[in-house]
């Protein structure tokens, strides 16, 4: 069924989010195909995080979110979405601060169907992030930012998702760590078959990593295309004038 559905894993149609009277996201439509890495870019407050939060049901939205060509995700509570294959790493890592690295990882495979495979899943993510094995019994809040991001991604992978959303995965990381995390994203996409949707402020780096990109401006979709098209598009530079200095 899913393969005949034109290869689309996620499709978002006219998604609108209001915070009180404020329109945070307005009629945004996008799609992510199986196996892609897709990036959503935009300045602070452009609605990037709101978009991801609406897809995972953390905020209420109008419009459609369809996953795997099946029925709409609207009305499916957040806690039932991981079992459909959808994982989400929130902005600023959000580890359980007073738990050890190991406890954080084990909670990534909390759902009963995942528990029997938990030891194997742990082995896999620790192979991906070798430093986590040394940090197993350390409290999460005592880790460096880069290590925390590794735990956050590893914890999401413990849930064996088909689709992984990352909210600003490079925020506050050293340049070396940015490269390391990017490499891991490529690996889980290429070898693990995980489709990735991430958002980011910095255009250059994001488009280097992703197949396609969407650019949000004040809650609306301003541009979209393959990474090559976007990089060549003069409008990108106009939208981003001064924003991409960092």
């Amino acid at each position, binding site marked *: 069924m899913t393969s005949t559905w034109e290869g689309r894993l996620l499709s978002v149609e006219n998604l609108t989010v209001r915070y009180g009277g404020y329109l945070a996201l307005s009629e945004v439509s996008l799609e992510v195909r199986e196996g892609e890495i897709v990036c959503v870019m935009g300045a602070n407050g452009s609605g990037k995080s709101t978009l991801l939060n609406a897809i995972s049901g953390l905020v209420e939205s109008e419009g459609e979110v369809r996953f795997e060509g099946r029925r709409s995700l609207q009305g499916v509570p957040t806690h039932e*979405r991981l079992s459909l294959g959808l994982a989400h790493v929130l902005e600023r890592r959000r580890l*359980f601060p*007073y*738990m050890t690295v190991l406890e954080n990882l084990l909670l990534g495979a909390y759902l009963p169907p995942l528990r029997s495979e938990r030891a194997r899943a742990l082995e896999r993510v620790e192979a991906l992030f070798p430093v986590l094995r040394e940090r197993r019994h350390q409290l999460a809040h005592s880790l460096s930012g880069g290590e925390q991001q590794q735990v956050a991604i590893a914890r999401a992978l413990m*849930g064996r998702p088909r689709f992984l959303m990352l909210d600003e995965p490079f925020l506050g990381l050293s340049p070396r760590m940015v490269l390391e995390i990017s490499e891991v994203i490529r690996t889980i996409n290429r070898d693990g078959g995980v489709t990735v949707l991430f958002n980011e402020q910095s255009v250059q780096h994001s488009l280097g990593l992703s197949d396609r990109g969407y650019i949000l401006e004040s809650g609306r979709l301003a541009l979209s295309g393959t990474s090559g098209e976007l990089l060549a598009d003069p409008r990108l530079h106009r939208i981003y004038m001064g924003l991409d200095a960092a």
Partner: protein
Amino acid sequence: MTELVIQGALSGLLIGGIYGLIALGLNLVFGTMRVVNFAQGTLLMVGMFMAYWLFVLTGLHPYLSPLVTVPALFALGYALQYFLVTPLLARERAREPMSVLLMTLGLALVLENLALMLFRGDYKTVQVRETSAVWILGDYIVSVGRFWSFVAMLGTVTALWLFLSRTDLGRAIRAVGQDRQVARLLGMNDRVIYNYAFGISTAVMGIAAAALVPFYYTHPAVGTSFLLKAFVIVVLGGLGSMPGAALGGLAVGLIEGVIGIWTEAAVAQILLFAVFIAMLFFRPAGLLGLERK
């Protein structure tokens, strides 16, 4: 003189176990949903009446009453969360929900007056061996009832600690307390987990009740004095901290026991609440108040 202090400390420490158990229940609920449960002491009272009537009507020794009261109180706590707390919590957006706190206060008043209506206000006691039995250890006297209440505290703290750190449900209870959104994203149904947390916190009162009934009076208002001490303990040990609750309980028992040697009980209480206020001023997170953002 030294003997007197040691004797006071010993008795105080042993009763401190009970205080610790109540603080533990309070902390479990606060740690998961940021609600101070004003009905915690009243739920202890419910457990004590259950143990009392089980003894009077069937002759069941209070120490065996948890076989009945722990499942019954767990069910009661689960239902209270499901029918009263969750609907209120769903409407509150604040991180430390005020309406729920007031609701628990109302619940305490309702249960207390219900007990007053049904069982009258006289002090009820049971007579079992542990009511008056003592062990003589050299120069010191140890009340058997108090000793077992201390053992019950140690056992319960250990069991709860193992549960919270080693089981999936236990870890989920902590996870929901530390970051509810992330817990949801990882597949945890926070509402169901709240039900369990409240249920367990209430069930622990069954153990405290079983330990208390043999040597303490049962009365509709018995929970209030324990609740006040439990507040001192959680502020001392740290809101949301499990070891803090246990150690804080012992500390409060110790203070009471030692100070009680020189002064009357009322003065000891005043000093206790002076410590409470001082803590709020100088170290509001408590001595072990770690699990808090």
